[in-house]
């Protein structure tokens, strides 16, 4: 490891949520930024959404650590800065997976971060959206348990196996809650912009925060083990054409998973385009060849196509699975495929703003083992033919 991370300790009255809001309020007051993008409870009290706040009195409704993820924060930032930056400086409070998706969007020119301060928070995970919709009060009680480090089995499956729930290194400022004493949070600058914020609020990052670091590290190790175990088990259920067909058999082709995915930013999905509309004759031909054709067509191909497009940038945020009305484990499949593909390129999506996406990097020698195995296959075939 490099030199230990230093941070600041911010103390205030109240719950962790109130302490974070007190800090944001102070930072707004000290002119660290002009506006805040933050999850807030809807007036009806039955949902949460991202709010762009310039007036600090509205901050009281904000829930920086909220029990569900109805909108992926990167998606919110994309809608805000997709066409370039604005004049004002905005702080965006995001979960680590939302920061990582933002970083991926940045690399693809879909967000402008010049006037944005990315602030991430140690993430306890989120509850399945369906559970919240069914009984918000019960869900809120469960989430209080989660915040105490219990009832982790009620979190969304991808949250249960998330090993990147804390600082990613690509944000400007990280808020550490794990291992913090009651009445305090850790503020960890991760960029000169973040250091600037702490300087302005008069909290230079000088404190030893190795306690927080140790808590994060040990939970990370534990989650890594759980993730590995889960993906290995899941792999046997979801790999191969037959398993994939089974997994996606409940898919009703609503494409919700695509609409909520922060990385799926195409203006028009290829699968909605004229390219994927064929004549009746074409479909009859296919039905004849395959013995039958599921309609509407390309249901599985849509998911495979999305895997091809998304998996290198997939941050396992789980938005797709939350949005699925028939409970297809989309996020789990994407985690599995993403993991494998990202490992092949030694790429961690969202780790750094400077790291180019693998498909933009030309390597003269790459995947030699694949080339060799292809050569091996054709040699084998020749031997058989002879």
């Amino acid at each position, binding site marked *: 490891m490099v030199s230990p991370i230093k941070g600041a300790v911010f103390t205030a009255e109240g719950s962790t949520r109130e302490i974070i809001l007190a800090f944001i309020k102070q930072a707004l007051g000290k002119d660290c930024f002009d506006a805040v993008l933050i999850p807030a409870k809807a007036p009806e009290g039955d949902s949460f959404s991202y709010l762009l706040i310039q007036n600090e009195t509205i901050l009281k409704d904000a829930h920086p650590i909220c029990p569900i993820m109805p909108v992926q924060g990167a998606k919110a930032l994309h809608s805000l800065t997709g066409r370039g930056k604005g004049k004002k400086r905005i702080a965006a409070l995001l979960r680590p997976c939302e920061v990582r998706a933002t970083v991926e969007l940045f690399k693809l020119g879909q967000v402008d971060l010049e006037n944005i301060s990315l602030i991430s928070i140690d993430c306890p995970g989120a509850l399945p959206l369906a559970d919240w919709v069914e009984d918000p009060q019960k869900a809120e009680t469960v989430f209080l348990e989660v915040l105490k480090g219990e009832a982790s089995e009620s979190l969304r499956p991808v949250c249960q196996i998330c090993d990147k729930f804390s600082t990613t290194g690509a944000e400007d400022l990280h808020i550490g809650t794990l291992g913090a004493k009651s009445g305090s949070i850790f503020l960890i600058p991760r960029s000169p912009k973040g250091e600037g914020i702490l300087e302005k609020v008069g909290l230079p990052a000088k404190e030893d925060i190795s306690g927080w670091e140790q808590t994060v590290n040990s939970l990370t190790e534990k989650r890594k083990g759980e993730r590995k175990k889960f993906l290995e088990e899941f792999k046997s259920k979801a790999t191969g054409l037959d398993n994939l067909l089974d997994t996606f058999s409940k898919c009703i082709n609503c494409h919700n998973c695509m609409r909520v995915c922060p990385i799926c930013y*195409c203006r028009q999905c290829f699968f909605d385009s004229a390219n994927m509309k064929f004549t009746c004759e074409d479909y009859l*031909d296919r039905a004849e*060849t395959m013995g039958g054709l599921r309609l509407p067509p390309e249901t599985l191909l849509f998911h495979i196509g999305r895997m091809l497009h998304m998996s290198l940038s997939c941050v396992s945020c789980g938005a797709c699975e939350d949005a699925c009305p028939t409970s297809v484990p989309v996020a789990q499949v994407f985690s599995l495929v993403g993991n494998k593909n990202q490992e092949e390129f030694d790429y961690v999506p969202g780790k750094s703003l400077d790291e180019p996406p693998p498909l*933009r990097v030309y390597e003269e020698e790459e995947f030699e083992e694949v080339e060799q195995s292809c050569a091996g296959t054709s040699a084998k075939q020749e031997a058989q033919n002879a």
Partner: protein
Amino acid sequence: MAKKIGVYVCECGTNIAEKVDIDKVIAAVSPIKDVEVAERHKLLCSDGGKEFIKQSIAEHGLTHVVVAACSPKQHEVTFMNVCEQAGINPQLSQLANIREQCAWVTSSAEEATDKAIRQIRAAISRVKYHAPLKKKEVVVSPDVLVIGGGIAGIKASQLLAAPDRKVYLVEKASSLGGKVKSFSKLFTNMESGSSLITQEIKSLLDNKNIEVLTESEVEQILGFLGNFEVKVIRKAEGKEQNFNVGAVVLATGFELFDPKGLPQYGYGKLDDVYTSLEFEEMNIPDGPTGGKVLLKNGKPPESVAIIHCVGREEKDYCSKVCCLYSFKFDRMLQSQLPGVKVSHFYSDLCIPGKSFQKFYEGTKEMGVEFVRSAKTEVTGNGKGLTVKYETEFGKQDSSTTDMVILLPAMESSGDAQKFAEMLNIPLDEKGFLVEEHQLLSPVSSAVEGIFVVGCAQGPQSISESIVQSEAAAGKILSALVPGRKLELEVRVSEISESLCLGCKTCIDVCPYGAITFDETRRISVVNEVLCHGCGNCAAACPSGAARLKHFTFPQIYQELKEVLR
């Protein structure tokens, strides 16, 4: 309009007919919808074969053509031309490769026949989706960019400039003349180099067809023979200048190997140890000593030692002109300082050609000493210099001297690397730009339309450099005839304005610099003149906005569907 497709299956002598049951193939594809005629022929690429297709097209009033024969690499253009001559847009044809990809590689005749049927079905299915892309031509630019204002670049510019051909000569220094400007004398005729180059520069500046851009650097060159887009930065004015040329001559010259890297010669530490170029500069009238050969203490030297091959071992090549110009130094020293003692320390002498032997012998007759030596070192004690060396017979020896002139190796200038990267021209292991073929194509580069002349290619004498400039000029004059047209690739990429999200992935993967970003519309835009149709952008575009004409999704889908059916 109804589609009428003609399908022609080639026997290719016995190449295809031996493995593929062509009658069975014809029987299988004839009933396919829109197929008007399906026929076999012994050799479609022969004159008779081509005529056969043309007549058939006319007879049946065909709209599309499928030829099942060999690799498109071999005869795609042949059959496209046949279509064009018969009045069909050549893009409305498709070649199914049933020779290399079928007959030659499939062992069972039955399987080969089945595969050929699938391939032809695929071609029929695909060709219906072809678009009649229009032929495009650009008039070649007869103008030429010459990079480097040394003697090689100057001569090339003079030869190429004409009323119908403009030459842009770009030099990064503030004045023209390169290294030759500092040569007070030239071998073997002992004429003044500086006055020769001054004359050449004058005639160059008088030429209205040459635009000289000094203190300028070439920033970007995109395109191909007949059509390069050039961006030059004029450093003095801080301005950018863009223009179009048909060819580029690289005359980026050389630098001397820095003897500081070899401490045994004392260069940089001892007084009165000079490189050959510093000695040249000492001899020109407007040089640092007003043209006089002087020691640091202001007195003329009584003895001078010339050390050969400085850096030859490190560079691992002979710079081939050092011996010759050192004999010139002997004459310069003797005429300015009669009676001066001159000694050469050398291990080998390189005196090629018909006139240099005499030049060398003349030097010896003047009383110049030649000492065959190895492991030469220069030391100083504050009063004078001592050259220590090992003799031919392995003995240690030494001699004192007032002045030392080192003959360092010539090495590639740093710009060679820059242009190699910019233009995709290989560098050799010594860092020089590589000619296309050492013997057969000695001034062309691996990129058509880019030429490499003079010391950019390796150590050369002045006359050799000029010969190369003349050769390059000859090649350019014959290739870039004013008014000549170039046919452009029509199967180029296009980017949908409504689908592009401006992620710039395509810009990163385009090897031809053919895509630019429109900041106002926030989308990528293809320059069709620069696009070669490689398809990288279409493959990499995450939002399906970039597509390659003639290789669109429906075309490939229709083809694959029939192969896999």
